[in-house]
């Protein structure tokens, strides 16, 4: 190879790197001893390194949105720390029976459960629930109840199938005689038919007494939420794990018959985080095993020796351990983004080792002695290695000063890591080779040249065309700040969360506005509700029922009826009660066409009469009265209702709207589904226009998205300018820097475009791709550019492109397997990383030499 640099071509960096490498090769044991000492010290320090998976801490704490969020969490800590047990059913009574059972069992497990609140079965809210309906609804319901009082009393005192049909027949007779519309019984008929049909189909459906009596659609799906404040074990990676285990155990132990008609899910921040941790770790073993195999194969093929591969890996591992120690001493606690520094270092750290090894081997193949090979390698790659380390570190440092706290941490650690990896490569590898000279190869070893595709004009043109075409989709690139986007969509807690998010009544995407007084909160709620994008705004005042006197008057009116239903003796309201068989026949004959419930019940009764057995009767009786006592209990509680003030509300409810220090919170529910990004923006804009002090999940999400976008743009610009400037200062060749930066720009556009085309927006996990792209793009570009300059037209006959490709393939192999993960963030990181690495290498190899040639010829 006629590319030996003359003395005048050598830069200070070449000489310095060469001197260090030579010294390391001459004092190998001292280098090894120093490395061991550093590794031990760093390893010790690394044991103090923690991880905080709280995605809300990704953004700088000094930003107003973050400060408001912090203040909100301090005043209302339960908003974020609660576990939500969600019970859904097509039968309200079934749901409430299960909720009652779960609440009772949770209250019996005080070791890990701090408090439990289930509005649908809370005694106070059950007793006063009617007060939250409109006066007209209360009137209608109490009228219905009053008319049903004797029926209920009769069923309560004799809960048998015979009494049920006799009562139903009596009701039909009385309805006929009163000449009121037969539709009055339709709901009762329909629900009875539903129970009969279910039993005929071999299924059990408990009669939905509460829905029928309250005039609600008995088949309407209801969602009940139990809010559980867990006792956390801070010593664990998942502090809520013991409490969640208790909850899971309680749910698993519920009687099968009880849970059959319901669907139970557990969600809330602690549950989401715990399952997220499990999903991240779930396939990590498989990913790790595959990665090790792939990396080993690529290194072995690329470096053409297992021994050299192990040496490169040793250099990488040393860099990782020392960098981890550095992270422990500087930042102390990693976040969701900075925890990925490992990915970064594997991607970048291995570069230096591969380039050093590849170059030394190249020199040995060409006949140099080991000492000469090391010296020549230092002289020929010193500038490229030093410059790429410095520019990459500079690019990372550009992130260190942004408000994107997650990335700024990573920027600092990444910058240090790159410098550590560089230093390790130019010391440990020469030292290792000095101790095991055979690893450097022998003169005349065969090598395989790479295709010279960088010089075929068509290839650069195709790459440029693809890059230009990617601009359009790339312009739609976005950052998804919602941590839900990271999580496994099939994880139970995520599915439950998404189910809640579908309904405005239960959506967890709610904003908060904090005020000083109750009056301010009330006024703020009214102002917010005026917005088209706000579904509801609730302050503590809204939890105090309106028109209470009128409703209590209606209760007073209905109270004797309720009392009769729950405690009175039934009265025979027809003179000659029929026996059960007669009653059933009589009822059958009275069911007339015209109302859906009546027709349906007639058909169901017809089928029932022809196939009834003592066993089916017993099962039907169970179905009919399964939830009857729940109704009786609810009605009994209602008799105790009285005027409600804010202070009377259940503590867990009150505390969510008024803090112990007297701060008031307005809860703002969106009108639209905020899973859709523009809807989030509309909602946040509407709320913050009314109150700049708004906080809570959606506000934080939007602020995070804005901050991250701004930070990335700012960092990328600074990185590009700084690295370009440094490169120009070091090489004094503007053309080289253009040849390095332009391909990087094309690679960035292609990656962003693919992010859009794959519907894989950037998120807290895969955003690591951006600095990695900058780092590897610049590194590879520098290596290729300097090699091309020193061996014009012959770069593809040198070891450099091989090293560049092997380095990128190693990164892709190491982390591409992450795409197998159930965790969406991790999987998208694997996919986008593979895309970014491919784009970077393609652009560098195709464009850098071509641009240099073109610039030189022009």
């Amino acid at each position, binding site marked *: 190879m006629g590319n030996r640099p003359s003395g005048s071509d050598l830069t200070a960096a070449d000489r310095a790197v060469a001197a260090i490498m030579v010294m390391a090769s001459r004092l190998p044991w001292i280098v090894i001893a120093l490395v061991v000492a550093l590794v031990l010290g760093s390893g010790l320090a690394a044991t103090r390194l923690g991880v905080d998976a709280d995605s809300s801490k990704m953004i700088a704490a000094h930003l107003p949105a973050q400060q408001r969020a912090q203040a909100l969490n301090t005043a209302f800590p339960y908003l974020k720390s609660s576990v939500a047990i969600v019970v859904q059913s097509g039968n309200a009574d079934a749901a409430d029976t299960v909720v009652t059972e779960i609440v009772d069992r949770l209250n019996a497990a005080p070791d890990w459960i701090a408090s439990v609140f289930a509005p649908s079965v809370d005694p106070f809210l059950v007793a006063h629930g009617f007060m939250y309906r409109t006066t007209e609804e209360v009137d209608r319901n109490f009228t219905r109840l009053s*008319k*049903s009082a004797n029926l209920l009393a009769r069923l309560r005192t004799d809960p048998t199938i015979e009494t049920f049909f006799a009562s139903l027949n009596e009701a039909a007779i009385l309805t006929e005689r009163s000449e009121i519309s037969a539709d009055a019984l339709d709901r009762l008929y329909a629900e009875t038919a539903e129970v009969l049909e279910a039993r005929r189909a071999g299924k059990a459906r408990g009669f939905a007494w509460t829905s029928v009596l309250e005039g609600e659609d008995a088949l309407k799906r209801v969602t009940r939420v139990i809010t559980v404040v867990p006792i956390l074990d801070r010593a664990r990676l998942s502090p809520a794990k013991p409490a969640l285990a208790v909850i899971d155990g309680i749910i698993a132990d519920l009687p099968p018959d009880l849970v059959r008609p319901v669907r139970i899910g557990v969600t809330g921040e602690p549950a989401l985080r715990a399952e997220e941790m499990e999903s991240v770790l779930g396939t990590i073993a498989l990913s790790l095993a595959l990665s090790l195999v792939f990396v080993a194969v690529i290194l072995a093929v690329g470096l053409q020796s297992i021994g050299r591969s192990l040496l490169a890996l040793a250099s990488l591992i040393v860099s990782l351990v020392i960098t981890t120690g550095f992270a422990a001493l500087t930042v102390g606690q990693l976040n969701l983004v900075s925890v990925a520094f490992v990915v970064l270092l594997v991607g970048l750290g291995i570069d230096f080792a591969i380039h050093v090894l590849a170059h030394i081997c190249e020199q040995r193949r060409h006949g140099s002695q080991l000492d000469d090979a090391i010296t020549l390698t230092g002289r020929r790659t010193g500038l490229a290695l030093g410059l790429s380390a410095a520019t990459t570190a500079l690019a990372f440092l550009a992130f260190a000063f942004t408000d994107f706290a997650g990335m700024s941490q990573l920027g600092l650690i990444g910058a240090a890591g790159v410098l550590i990896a560089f230093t390790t490569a130019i010391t440990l590898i020469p030292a290792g080779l000095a101790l095991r000279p055979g690893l450097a190869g022998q003169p005349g070893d065969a090598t395989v040249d790479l295709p010279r595709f960088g010089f075929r004009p068509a290839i650069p043109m195709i790459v440029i065309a693809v890059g230009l075409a990617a601009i359009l989709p790339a312009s739609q690139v976005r950052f998804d700040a919602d941590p839900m986007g990271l999580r496994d969509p099939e994880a139970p807690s995520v599915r439950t969360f998404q189910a809640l998010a579908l309904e405005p009544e239960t959506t967890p995407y709610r904003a908060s506005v904090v005020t000083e007084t109750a009056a301010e909160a009330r006024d703020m709620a009214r102002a917010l509700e005026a917005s088209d994008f706000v579904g509801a705004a609730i302050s503590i005042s809204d939890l105090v029922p309106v028109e209470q006197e009128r409703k209590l008057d209606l209760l007073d009116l209905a*109270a004797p*009826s309720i009392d009769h239903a729950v405690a009175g003796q039934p009265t025979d309201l027809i003179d000659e009660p029929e026996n059960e068989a007669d009653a059933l026949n009589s009822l059958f004959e009275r069911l007339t066409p015209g109302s859906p419930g009546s027709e349906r019940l007639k058909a169901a009764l017809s089928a029932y009469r022809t196939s009834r057995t003592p066993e089916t009767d017993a099962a039907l009786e169970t179905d009919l009265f399964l939830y009857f006592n729940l109704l009786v209990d609810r009605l009994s509680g209602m008799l105790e209702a009285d005027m409600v003030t804010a202070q009377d509300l259940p503590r867990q409810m009150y505390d969510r709207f008024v803090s112990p220090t007297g701060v008031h919170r307005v809860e703002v529910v969106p009108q639209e589904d905020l899973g859709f990004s523009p809807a989030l923006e509309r909602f946040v804009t509407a709320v913050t226009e009314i109150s700049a002090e708004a906080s809570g999940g959606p506000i934080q999400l939007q602020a995070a998205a804005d901050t991250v976008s701004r930070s990335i743009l700012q960092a990328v610009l600074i990185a590009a300018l700084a690295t370009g400037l440094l490169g120009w200062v070091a090489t004094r060749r503007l053309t080289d820097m253009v040849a390095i930066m332009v391909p990087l720009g094309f690679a960035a556009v292609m990656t962003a475009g693919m992010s859009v085309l794959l519907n894989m927006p950037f998120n807290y996990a895969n955003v690591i791709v951006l600095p990695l792209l900058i780092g590897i793009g610049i590194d590879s570009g520098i290596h290729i550019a300097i090699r091309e300059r020193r061996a014009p037209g012959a770069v593809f006959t040198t070891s450099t492109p091989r090293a560049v490709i092997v380095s990128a393939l190693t990164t892709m192999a190491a982390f591409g397997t992450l795409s197998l993960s159930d965790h969406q963030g991790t999987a998208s990181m694997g996919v986008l990383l593979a895309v970014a690495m491919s784009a970077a290498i393609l652009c560098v190899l195709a464009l850098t030499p071509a641009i240099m040639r073109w610039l030189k010829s022009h």
Partner: protein
Amino acid sequence: MFRMIQILAVVASLALGIASAGPVHADEKQDRAIQVTERLLAEAHSALTGNGNGTALRGAISSAFAFDVWERFLIESRSDAFTDDQRSNFRSLLPGFLAHLYQHQFQKGLDTAPTLGDARKVRRDVLVSSTFLRPNGGDLPVDWRVREFPDRGAQVIDVMVGGTSFLVLKREEFAAMIDSGGAEAVLTHMQRNSL
């Protein structure tokens, strides 16, 4: 389905009699409620078994019933449908209407006087139970809901049979009439069914 009280009144042959009750007195409020009910049943039975033209029964009802409460619950939800004159007319017709209702419901089975049962508090009122004898020999339990007013003592504000409230049933009936024929429909109905 639950207009059962109306139906019950038609199909049942009730025997009315003067109560000779021996209820348990829980407290003074309950005592007063029992006294009012006892007096009402006695006077009403006397009026229905005597040869009066209804004045006595109307007097018994007037002295025992809190008409303002009846009026409020019966037509408050449709109060906008009434002019002041109509409201005044309603007020004047109410005692006769309730007396007629009483007569219509309980005039059968007058051979035996109703008996008073116990009294119990339900929220802020007292329910006084009584039993009327049906023509078929069976018992018909009737509860009298009594409220104590600071200015006029205890008065009956509702009558319950089988847990079903007269007030509720009549209110619904009136509401239907008002919705279809306005306030005049109710007033005409009351005039036709007045004692």
